[in-house]
């Protein structure tokens, strides 16, 4: 049944394609394929919700994340506190919303860092070849041989104090209000740690993509008719490598959120009283038996967000690799 439907759709698509061959490119095609996939649309919805909460959560949250109501400590969900309060009388919903900002910022910035690093190093390795390739490949091997979690927590533990000292020094020298709050320190440390463990994956992907695309017939053809190096790079190599990269970035985004909460759970990530989902689980895990919602709420939040982003990534794989999806 599903197969015949798919066949009909494919036929229809073929006819449509034959009709307006010019107007429908790869991307609009991919977009159509993705919209048809229900799970990936759910994922996109969750992702959008995270983005909105990360951007506007602090303004929408009913209470400040540090506000304690000592008359209402460790309560279950109620009308005043929709998701209950924690051991210190802070509203769980507000802390979840503030935590979304932490997770969102960490995911965006650390993914940006590691993708940039990965594209640069992977591109250099593929283009220069010889010793540069050798050196970068060995660096990838070394970084990937250390278990990620161990490496990230070591980096975070080592560089917290130096970064904090640097921020203090900058405040003393410049007097800028930006350096007065120590909250940036945690975030910078986490960005650095995550970028340093994630870049090898991207670098390896980019290097492999460029090396294999360079040998493809269409690139050879372009070279044969005298297209310039830069144009080949811009018109042929980058657009073709973009699909796998987008998929990897999506999964990396989810991975960064999980990794941040993992580091915070271990106590080397975002420090209290800043709101982080992982730290919220860690803070409350001893009282799971008496107040299970304190653990369940941040836990379910992480699980839903990670699941949504993975659904989205899965839908993107199908949308961007039509050959694999049809098999």
């Amino acid at each position, binding site marked *: 049944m*599903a*197969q015949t439907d*798919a066949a009909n759709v494919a036929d229809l698509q073929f006819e449509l394609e034959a009709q307006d061959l010019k107007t429908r490119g790869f991307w609009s095609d991919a977009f159509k394929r993705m919209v048809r996939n229900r*799970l990936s649309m759910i994922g996109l919805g969750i992702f959008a919700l995270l983005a909105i909460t990360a951007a506007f959560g602090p303004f929408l949250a009913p209470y400040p994340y540090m506000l304690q109501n000592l008359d209402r400590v460790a309560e279950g969900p109620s009308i005043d506190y929709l998701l209950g309060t924690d051991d210190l009388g802070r509203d769980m919903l507000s802390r979840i919303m503030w935590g979304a900002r932490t997770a969102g910022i960490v995911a965006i910035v650390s993914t940006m860092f590691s993708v940039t690093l990965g594209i640069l190093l992977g591109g250099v390795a593929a283009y220069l070849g010889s010793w540069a390739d050798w050196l970068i490949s*060995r660096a990838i*091997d*070394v970084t*990937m*041989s*250390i*278990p*990620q*979690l*161990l*490496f990230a*927590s*070591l*980096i975070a*533990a*080592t*560089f*917290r*104090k*130096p970064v904090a000292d640097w921020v203090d020094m900058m405040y003393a020298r410049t007097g800028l209000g930006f350096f007065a709050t120590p909250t940036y320190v945690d975030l910078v440390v986490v960005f650095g740690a995550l970028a340093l463990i994630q870049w090898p994956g991207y670098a390896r992907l980019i290097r492999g993509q460029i090396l294999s695309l360079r040998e493809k017939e269409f690139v050879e053809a372009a070279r044969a008719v005298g297209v310039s190096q830069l144009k080949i790079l811009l018109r042929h190599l980058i657009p073709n490598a973009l699909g796998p990269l987008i998929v990897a970035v999506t999964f990396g985004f*989810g991975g960064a959120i*999980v990794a941040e*909460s*993992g580091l915070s*759970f*271990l*106590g*080397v990530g975002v420090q209290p009283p800043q709101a982080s989902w*992982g730290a919220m*689980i*860690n803070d409350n*895990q001893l009282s*799971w*038996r008496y107040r*299970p919602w304190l*653990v*369940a709420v941040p*836990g*379910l939040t*992480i*699980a839903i967000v*990670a*699941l949504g*982003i*993975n*659904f989205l990534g*899965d839908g993107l794989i199908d949308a961007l690799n039509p050959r*694999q999806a049809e*098999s």
Partner: protein
Amino acid sequence: MTRYLSMRLLIIIPTLFTTLMIVFLLGYLGPIDPVTILRSQWAAQGIYLNEQEVADLRHQYGLDRPFFAQFGTYMDNLLQGKFGYSFTDAAPIWPRIKRSLPVSGSLALGAVIIMIVVGIPLGILAARFRNTRLDYIIVGFSLFLWSIPPFVLVPMILIISVLWFDIMNVPRGWKGVWHPSFFVAAGIISLRSLASIIRQTRGGILEVLQNDYVRTARAKGLTEFKVMARHVARNALIPVVTSMGLLVDDFMWQTVFVDLAFNFPGLGRLFTQGLSSRDFNMINGVVLFTAGLTMAINLLVDLIYPLLDPRVVYD
């Protein structure tokens, strides 16, 4: 082949050396050293050290020496097979790692068995019945399991099984391989890799099924089971074997949290203990061991390739 093998083994040495140097450097650069932690621990017990005594203690441990002197001593000991002594209680490191190996090893083995026995058949099933409800359930469920981090899963399982259904007690401590807590823990550890194995197997089989030799095998009247077992599975397992290289990393991710939650004396707990007391020798030992294991498994994976695919030949 011999040449390839010796080249691969030779490259492991500088890679491990660099890995160790990076980890050692992180410890050296870090602002907190074991003596700082010791001082605060003793202060909590009412023993206060002045600056001179702290400096003496650092000198005694050799922590005031320059980086290369410290690293050189460590390497020198390592080449003699010594992993050094713990800074917290002066006990040697290697016996500790050795004692944690049966725990972590049996957990890892249990996880791998679950992965192979459950994961590969599920992947084959999903591919065989692709685009049916069964396929969607298997793939969706594996993605679900893959998404949930262990530090979320463990409390959830505890809440469900202890508070709601009351089918077990809170597992604390290592009670051997036959205790239910072992199966729960091994199950949790396997989840991440399980999901990727299911997806890899499914994808691999779908790709192989399109080949002409599968049609030929079917046309000449082989049973579906034989087609799958002889012609499809063997070729489809190549990507699965590749993903085995990531096993150690996945395992360490899960085991750090599982050891914490269940209070197992495994490698994960050694690491978190080492990290919280900045016990450099302990951290170095665990990282060295796991990094070496990763490289060994990657080498093993590359050696298995030619067995699965005769076209792969090393020099």
